[in-house]
């Protein structure tokens, strides 16, 4: 049996959509399924209309699905807004008492009323348990083993005491039973647990980057809160004590990046988390890292701009900005994770590259990656290396005269930390000599600027080729970057199943681009189609300007939402490509 089931839960901000979706997700994850959870929130704390989606599949999934198989409506808008997405026969679960009025007739869909609040009050004495009732009811409708949910609730509420755990379990069980007893066919759809020891975890991009940072040796994080990046900061703060990490909430983003640079200069692996608007304020300090050759990692979770834009939605609109930000010319590296697994390993890589080349490295994510939960195999820590590229005390002892900016073949100068030996370490945002002192001569300028840019030669060799996926001999090749990996891959799979010859080339290490490798991969492909979550095709431009590969067809989305495979396939139809 192949499962691909999509549950949508709609309601107001503050109604606990995330509690329900998270419990459901883990319940199915632990039964061996692949789960994908995504959220749509407005930029407000209460009210409005938000929704979460839990997609359950026995195949690897990294993306949303357009159609809804089960709708949980906590408010009337859930029905109005999502009615068109329902399949024939989709069941809408709701507590009729708590919804003002229903405007849609149940033709294709059928309503299933579960008195969440009444049950919660009856069984556990308070309406706060109604979300557990709802969760139970859904699990019941899918005839899934209740114990998985009970375990999830136990762990979720453990810290609040046994009573609370029991109340939640009781409420859930009552919902479960109510569904099984009252739903016409008992099971609306049958989902059977597969495997108890899956070695899979369910993490968001923010959490994966947090885990990657911790694993990669992060010691100092400074940030100013900004959606959708704040989750990474919070995740690291939650675990900071265990690993002696300092997390500093800065007064503004200017301070944040300057602090991270100061910390790095003093010897800590450091990082900032931000979004486009916050990064805009960091542009000057980016150049500071550039000219003082101070390693730093910048996690930028993109959201639609310009300016405040759509703070809680997704876009890939800042690529050209990060590549070109700050006055002057200096090397930098941009990594754009495809999914949380990739995010984890790329975060470790980001720290190592930053340290080795003494440059700023970007992790360029977006709200879709940051906030959605993906099922990934447990990260493999065996191959994680924390590379410092700093002179040891012994090495320092051997040095007669230390020059922070020694001119070398590779452009990389040996790095010492201030206070770690009797050698003095000087850094300067002015053009400087090898010792780090102001030097305005033209001879020195040529040497130093060239030395810094020289690092690009080594850097580009660190960049992995893009990922190729799908049939070798294809009529259409999708080209994407970053978080669109999931939907594109699913589109390739779906189309392949339907007999089309399509494949994809996907970039997760986007700058600098290794020209030859990329050209050799793309040059003989038929019909390249760029897929980007922005309005102007920023990666397409980058690819062209760096490699000369021109992609003239594209599927662009800039409405604040992520792609789905269905969108992509739909667009292909519109373009009469299939």
């Amino acid at each position, binding site marked *: 049996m192949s499962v691909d089931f999509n549950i949508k839960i709609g309601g107001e901000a503050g109604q606990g959509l995330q509690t329900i979706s998270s419990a459901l997700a883990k319940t199915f994850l632990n039964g061996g399924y692949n789960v994908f959870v995504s959220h749509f929130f407005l930029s407000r704390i209460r009210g409005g209309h938000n929704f979460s989606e839990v997609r359950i599949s026995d195949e690897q999934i990294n993306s949303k699905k357009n159609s809804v198989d089960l709708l949980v409506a906590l408010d009337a808008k859930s029905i109005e807004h999502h009615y068109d997405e329902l399949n024939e026969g989709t069941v809408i679960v709701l507590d009729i008492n708590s919804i003002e009025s229903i405007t849609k007739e149940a033709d294709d869909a059928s309503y299933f009323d579960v008195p969440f609040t009444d049950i919660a009050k009856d069984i556990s004495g308070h309406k706060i348990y109604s979300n557990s009732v709802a969760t139970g009811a859904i699990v019941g409708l899918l005839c899934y083993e209740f114990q998985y949910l009970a375990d999830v609730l136990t762990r979720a509420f453990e810290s609040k005491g046994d009573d609370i755990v029991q109340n939640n379990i009781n409420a859930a069980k009552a919902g479960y039973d109510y569904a099984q007893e009252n739903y016409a066919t008992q099971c609306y759809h049958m989902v059977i647990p597969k495997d108890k020891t899956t070695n899979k975890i369910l993490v968001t991009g923010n959490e994966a980057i947090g*885990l990657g940072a911790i694993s990669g040796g992060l010691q*100092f994080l400074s940030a100013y809160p900004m959606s959708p990046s704040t989750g990474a900061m919070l995740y690291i703060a939650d675990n900071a004590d265990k690993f002696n990490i300092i997390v500093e909430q800065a007064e503004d983003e*200017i301070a944040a990046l300057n602090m991270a*640079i100061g910390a790095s200069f003093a010897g800590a692996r450091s990082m900032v988390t931000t979004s486009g608007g916050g990064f805009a304020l960091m542009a000057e300090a980016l150049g500071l890292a550039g000219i003082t050759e101070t390693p730093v990692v910048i996690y930028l979770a993109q959201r639609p701009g310009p300016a405040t834009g759509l703070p809680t939605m997704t876009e890939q609109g800042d690529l050209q900005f990060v590549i070109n930000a700050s006055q002057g010319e200096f090397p930098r590296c941009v990594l754009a994770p495809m999914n949380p697994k990739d995010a984890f390993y790329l975060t470790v890589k980001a720290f190592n590259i930053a340290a080795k080349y003494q440059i700023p490295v970007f992790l360029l994510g977006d709200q879709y990656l940051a906030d959605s939960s993906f099922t990934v195999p447990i990260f493999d820590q065996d191959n994680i290396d924390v590379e410092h590229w700093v002179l040891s005390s012994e090495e320092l002892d051997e040095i007669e005269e230390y020059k922070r900016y020694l001119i070398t073949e590779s452009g990389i100068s040996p790095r010492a930390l201030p206070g770690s030996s009797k050698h003095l370490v000087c850094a300067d945002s002015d053009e400087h000599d090898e010792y780090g002192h102001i030097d305005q001569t033209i001879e020195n300028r040529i040497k130093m600027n060239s030395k810094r840019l020289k690092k690009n030669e080594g850097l580009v060799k660190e960049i992995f080729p893009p990922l190729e996926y799908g049939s070798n001999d294809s009529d259409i090749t999708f080209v994407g970057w970053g978080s669109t990996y999931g939907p594109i891959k699913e589109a390739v799979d779906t189309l392949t199943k339907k007999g089309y010859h399509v494949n994809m080339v996907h970039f997760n290490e986007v700058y600098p681009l290794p020209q030859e490798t990329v050209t050799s991969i793309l040059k003989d492909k038929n019909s390249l189609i760029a897929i980007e979550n922005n309005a102007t095709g920023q990666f397409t431009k980058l690819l062209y300007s760096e490699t000369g590969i021109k992609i003239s067809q594209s599927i662009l989305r800039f409405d604040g939402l992520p792609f789905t495979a269905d969108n992509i396939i739909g667009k292909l139809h519109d373009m009469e490509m299939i």
Partner: protein
Amino acid sequence: MSKHIQPQLFDTNQEIEWCPGCGNFNILKALKRAFTELEKKPEELLLCSGIGQAAKLPHYINSNIYNGLHGRALPIATAAKIVNSELTVIAIGGDGDMYGEGGNHFIHTIRRNPNITMIAHDNQIYGLTKGQASPTSNFGMITKLQKHGVINRPFNPLSVAIGLNCSFVSRGFAGNIEQLTSILKKAILHKGFALVDILQPCVTFNKLNTYKWYQERVYNLDDEGHDPHDQQEAFRKSLEFGDKIPTGIFYENKENYLNTYEQNVGVDDQALTKKSDDSRDITALMLEFT
């Protein structure tokens, strides 16, 4: 020990780029003296600065230095200190640097209270950019840009710092090396964020606040028996800036909750870099995601 340490220890062979007669020379002298008398070693020091004439100072002291961006010395200094609390960290800049471009860091670094010393060369003018008004320029002063005189009221770093219960607040005068050295020493020894605002004649661009102008006005708070633990009095004194200008230590805060930033974060005993190692096992963390 002390007799072996020589003032030249802190000399560098960098050519000093200031104008002859500039107040900065005396600040440099006083700071070197303070380091000498405190028996600091060059490698223990980290001098962070922004951009401006004042901000060039670190290049003239044999020490670790980070000469960063205009206005941003404090975040660099704060972070460096929290990462390596064993360093003696000084943040240096001009009045434009520290109170104009860097004003937000000034007020928020006071709130954090890292154990660093902030030195503002307060020449009441933008020196390096050739003489525009600075945040502390006198009301009405005429400059090349402010042709009808400055119309903003001067920023008062001392009253702001005292209002924010800053841990150490002082003012020196570049014309009095003795007193300045003594203030600097106390500031460096003080555990917590120490502000040293220094009246610094800019002989090239500030024709109003000259050596003479200051000399006629400055007096030492010590001479008046000022009690630096009295916030209210400190505030009153901080508002005085006219015919008489107080110098010395205005305010010193020893309240209990004024732990330093390093203490609050738990890294004052040992450098963070020495505390944390690379063996980061995240297995337990991952299990929370099932």
